[in-house]
């Protein structure tokens, strides 16, 4: 006799999710079926084993891993802070000094633009002085 239906009910019974009527049907069946009684005992044992699975030992590498992640987070946070400071006056001066410097060199190679080049050179020098002054102040 096939007991597949009752086998599924055994799981519901052990999980306590069985319908009250089905519980009665199952209990009646267990009285007459030694196979299902045996299955119930085995399943009880298996449930006990599965619900008492051992704790896993934590490997040594875990703390190394955690520390490396924490370092990474710290670096990322620092980069964020640096990005937040991007729009300061110091960065503005730095950026423009470099741009104007490159522009004045570029203009030297275009004929008839001596005037523009010398104006840019002047601006470049004044920006360089400003930058020097600013970084000096920063140091102090």
């Amino acid at each position, binding site marked *: 006799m096939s007991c597949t239906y009752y*086998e599924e009910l055994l799981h519901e019974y052990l999980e306590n999710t069985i319908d009250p009527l089905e519980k009665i049907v199952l209990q009646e069946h267990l009285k007459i079926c030694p196979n299902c009684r045996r299955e119930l005992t085995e399943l009880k044992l298996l449930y006990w*084993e*599965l619900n008492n699975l051992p*704790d896993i030992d934590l*490997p040594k590498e*875990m703390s190394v*891993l955690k520390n490396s*992640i*924490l370092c990474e987070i710290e670096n990322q946070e620092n980069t964020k802070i640096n990005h937040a400071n991007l729009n300061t006056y110091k960065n503005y001066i730095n950026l423009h000094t470099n741009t104007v410097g490159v522009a004045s060199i570029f203009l030297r190679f275009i004929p008839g633009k001596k005037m523009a080049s010398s104006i840019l050179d002047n601006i470049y020098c004044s920006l360089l002085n400003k930058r020097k002054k600013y970084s000096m102040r920063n140091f102090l």
Partner: protein
Amino acid sequence: MISLEFSDEKIVALCKLNDIHGFDSLYTKYEKYIYKLCYYYTNSKEDSLDLLQDIYIKLYKSINNFDESKPLIPWIKRISINTCQNYLRDNKNVISASRNSRLPDDITNNNFSLYTVEDEVNFNNTKHAINSAIKDLPNEYKSVIVLRHVECLSYKEISEYTSIPIGTVKTYLYRGRKLIKEYLKKEGIWEV
């Protein structure tokens, strides 16, 4: 350890300020829980550590979206389980290949030297055998068994996490347990 004294609220508040000590506490407090879950999913130390790393990074990246009015544990659980589920999905072929390669006659040939006396003793241990049985389960059975018995989730919760209908969850659990039982009998752990 200081970190263990922190409450979840305090940890979340610190983490939201991007405080490094907040993340340190968060990881230290839940590392055991997360690692255990990863280990039952992967049954490999290396893979578990990889998953753990992914989970740590996800926790860091999504802490700002976490709603403080809700408890922390289910949120960690969700991120951890999703990461493990993705691992099973992405490694479907790799895992089934390693399972198929584990033929019984492996022990009798050259690989024999790899088995130490300690392994022999452990092998007779029921707990160890159950771990191996879970490891050898097909992925869909493995995840529901781990979620039901390691995580102690209800059918409904398992269904939500895995997007599998409740009826199918029950069937998978039923078949998974049957396979574990057969494995224990086959390995001689349980006398037939």
